[in-house]
């Protein structure tokens, strides 16, 4: 039975998703380095913030700001 680990396209898929052609060794090192960080990000994912607007606010007037004030 073919599982994900035996998928011959897996490395290509990783490369396309990540946008970087990591070697299998480097990919493994980076995934290991990311493991503890992922625990924290997973914790954040569980927080319900549905009704909160992100802190990023699109501001179309930004390019028109001039020296000395807005």
């Amino acid at each position, binding site marked *: 039975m073919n599982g994900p680990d035996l998928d011959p396209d897996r490395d290509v898929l990783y490369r396309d998703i*990540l*946008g*970087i052609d*990591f070697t299998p060794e*480097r990919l493994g*090192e*980076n*995934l290991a*380095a*990311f493991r*503890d*960080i*992922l625990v*924290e*990000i*997973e*914790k*954040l*994912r569980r*927080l319900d*913030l549905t009704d*909160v*607007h*992100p*802190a*990023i606010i699109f501001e179309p007037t*930004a390019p028109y*700001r*001039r*020296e*000395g*004030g*807005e």
Partner: protein
Amino acid sequence: MTRPLWAQPIETLAPKLRTGSLSPVALTQACLERIEQVDSRLQSFIHVSSAALEQAHHAEQEIKAGGWRGPLHGIPVGVKDNYLTRDMPTTAGTTAPGISFPLRDSAAAGRLRNAGAILIGKTRSHEFAWGNVTPPVRNPWDLTRVPSGSSGGSGAALAAGLCTAALGSDTGGSIRMPASVTNTVGLKATFGRVSRDGVVPHSWSLDHAGPLTRTVADAAHMLNVLAGYDAADPACQAQPTPDYTKALGKPVKGLRLGVCRNHFFERNQEDVERAVEQAIGDLAAQGASVHEFRLPILEYGLGAIFAIELASSTAYHDVSIRAGRTPHFQPDVRSLVEIGRFVTGADYLKAEQYRAALMEDFRKVFETTDVVLGPTTPITAWKIGEWTVEVGGRQESVLAASWRFTYPYNLTGLPAISVPCGFDRQGLPIGLQIAARPFDEMTLLRVAHAYERAHEWKDRFPDL
């Protein structure tokens, strides 16, 4: 007893420079000699300016001719190596091939130059301002220990008297952590208060530019010069710029001190907690009231700052990643720059939602408090090469522990300052962190100064 010139703060040097009883040349020479004497052991400077004495001579002539520009005129300032400078190379701490930076002044360097400061050299940065140790810099209080980072070169140089003030940058605590572990003052003003134009980006919405100084008054003098609107920094705000020295010497009686009992006081080294509790008690004894509160949302902050910082750094370094330059980065920085690819767009935006929620929670806190106090870091300077430390009875990675109390103020953009508040049993410095409402650096400096002048921590120097 008169302190040597290299050990004096701006607040005592400036009046002498103004009246001509001290020459900028003598002061700059004293710092250059100090660099020559001790920096082979500290490694805090990556470049010493060949034009420093020429700048000092020019300042001397200007002052003699009645052209005193202000308290920074003739003051030697170290510039972190991620600020562009027109007369000194910038490396941002990297030796990777194919990466170079222009010879032009960052906004902060330009402002200091216009104020008459002597840009004495470039202080070492952890590569691309990532990381919290700043190799190969050593902590002047114990040469076997780190000066933290990423502005570790500025912290070490200042603490050792190699310059009178320094510039640092702070994305998760990189001004305040080195200040905390070197017995200096580190000020991260409100996001948008100080222009980051010409500072090599690390994470656009978290990066702050600011000073490390010997005293709180010196931080006020530096902020007077650095603060102000700059259209070249899209985050910079056109807010009024008060004279920050007017915050000094005012009593704290009647002010409300907030103390967040979760997160900031759950796991600290014993000596750190003792010193900070004592500091809060000292300010209360001066007439301030203490208001304890809890912010449960802080439990989710580490994931949020990692998502934003990693994704932003990876975006900035995208060209380098594609060009195959990252294998030439330091191993820790290479990993951090590459793994930002694993942060999804949804995670990034969730972090930005979190950030808005955290900002709102702090806004509510500031309805009933004027400042928030706590430790700058839960640990004192750790040994070079040590990756875990004991905190609150258990082993913890220094990466996780060191910035735990500083990054909330990068996520919120609130102003925060670290001031010396004692030493642990090994003789290592401890920092007290004070945060305030957006653009309320006046209250921040007022409280910091009230604490500082009631103690003698700023008068201690490492034995080198």
